[in-house]
């Protein structure tokens, strides 16, 4: 496990190529692979700093939690991982984001293909309001030309089951997505992201609008999904981070302060700020 300490963000030494590429380099003995990795990733909104110089791995078949006080750049960082900033005019992204070793910001890369591999659940629920629940879930398949009704039915049911929404909506799949409650809409957004079977799943506070029971179900889902996916989750809920994640990154005013195994972050953080935050002294 000592490579983890190498990966830990070290401002004086940004050339940390050795750490992660050694893991991905595949001596075959490491327990998990790097699925995504950022290198000196910065996002600026005009003169406002979103995040600055973040280098961080997202491991395959693991859950990485991003924590930190409001406004510290968690959403900004997460959105950079699937090129969601492309449409934000004032946002400028610099540095690299590697997916399986390839920079997704390279000039020839088509963001559409990237986003099919990297699913995202947003902080606020975003159903397509006039589209039926069914069509919401399968939108990512149907709208790119998949018409096989049986397949779509299966995908729809499975995704809604996974998102713990099936029982509530199975009798009204044809009603508009906008007619659901806030928490149901959030689970619908989760189902929609799962339906395209991404390889990496980014979730921005997926349970912040959910009741404890649905939250627990989503946490269960995350636990199940991690056997296949690489998952990154933003959360303000420390218990949740501790429960679901294997790794935790602590952000503070645009900087990555500490990245380590969740166990270590929550029991014995190396950084004082991290400790203060986790113990509730600020934020």
């Amino acid at each position, binding site marked *: 496990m000592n490579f983890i300490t190498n990966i830990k963000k070290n401002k004086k030494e940004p050339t940390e190529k050795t750490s992660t590429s050694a893991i991905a380099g595949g001596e075959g003995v490491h327990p998990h692979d790097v699925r995504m990795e950022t290198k000196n990733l910065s996002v600026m909104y005009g003169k406002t700093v979103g995040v600055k110089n973040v280098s961080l791995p997202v491991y395959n078949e693991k859950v990485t939690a991003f924590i930190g006080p409001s406004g510290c750049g968690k959403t900004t960082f997460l959105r950079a991982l*699937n090129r*969601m900033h*492309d*449409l934000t*005019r004032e946002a400028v992204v610099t540095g690299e984001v590697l997916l399986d070793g390839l920079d997704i910001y390279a000039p020839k890369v088509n*963001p*559409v*293909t990237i*986003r*099919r591999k990297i*699913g*995202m659940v*947003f902080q*606020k629920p*975003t*159903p*397509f*309001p*006039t*589209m039926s629940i069914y069509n919401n879930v399968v*939108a*990512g398949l149907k*709208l*790119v030309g998949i018409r096989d009704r049986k397949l779509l039915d299966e995908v729809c049911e499975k995704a809604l089951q996974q998102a713990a929404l099936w029982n509530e909506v199975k009798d009204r799949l044809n009603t508009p997505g906008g007619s659901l409650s806030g928490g149901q809409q959030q689970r619908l*957004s989760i189902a*929609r*992201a799962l*339906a*395209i079977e991404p390889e990496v799943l980014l979730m921005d506070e997926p349970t912040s609008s959910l009741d404890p029971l649905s939250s627990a179900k989503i946490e269960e889902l995350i636990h199940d999904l991690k056997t296949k996916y690489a998952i990154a989750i933003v959360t303000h809920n420390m218990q949740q981070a501790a429960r679901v994640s294997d790794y935790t990154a602590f952000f503070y005013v645009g900087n990555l302060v500490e990245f380590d195994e969740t166990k270590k972050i929550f029991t014995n953080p190396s950084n004082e700020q991290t400790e203060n935050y986790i113990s509730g002294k600020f934020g």
Partner: protein
Amino acid sequence: MIQGTKSINRRRINDRIMFGLLVLSTVVVMTPLLIIIGYVVINGFNALSIDFFTQELGSPARAMQGRPTGLMHTMLGTIVVDFMALIIAVPIGIGAGIMLSEYPDHKLNPVLRIMNDTLNGMPAILKGMLAFVLVVKPMGTFSGLAGGVALAFVMIPIVARTTESALMAIPWAIREAGLAIGLPRWRVVLSTVMPAAKTGLVTGVLIAFARAAGEAAPLVFTSFGNNYMPRNWTGMIWGPVDTLPQRLYSLAISPYKEWHTMGWAAGIVLLTFVIILFVAARLLTRKKNS
């Protein structure tokens, strides 16, 4: 407590005053409209006969000698010309609206905006002249098509603007959600944003259509007018054709009393048509807001 009651009373009074003002302004707006409608109906009602809807106009002599005469060809011509305008203007206007709303960073965007604003501010008669130069001149004849093009110039900037604002009203997050499931940008616009904005889009088209349907000026040197029914209906596209607003005008300035009455009747038909369009647009908007 006393203070509370007092302020509640004050609010009640304020509420009454505001309500009164609202009623008053509604009345002020409605009165001229009702006067116009009443006047048109009173003057034109007698000319509304079966003949009016089933005969062509012909020469003034027909009306003066009491022979059958009517404006069937005018109403058909209006439908043909207006629908040509609709067919031309809707794709262009909606396309321009999409461009303005969804691709704000495109380098052609500012150009498009200036063109659209210019077209919007251009007097209707100049739009007629534009269509004259673009269609009548090359074709060598006045035509319904030219009239359709001229009315399309009236509709396009309105449709573009209403489309833009209808699309802008859809939260940005919807687009991001579409992109996040791996849809290309155009697909996101077409399949997620536009359906969400549907009522706004249709309302905009209806308002533009109603506006264009009432215009006479752009038609004077494009569809030109015609006292007779063309031999077959395609004559309405390729040759000079009559339309209600323009016929209304020429009947009104004619020296014949019988034609004046027919002009009022034409006014009734045109008003009905336009009111139906506006009411439809209104109902759609209301449905959206509820």
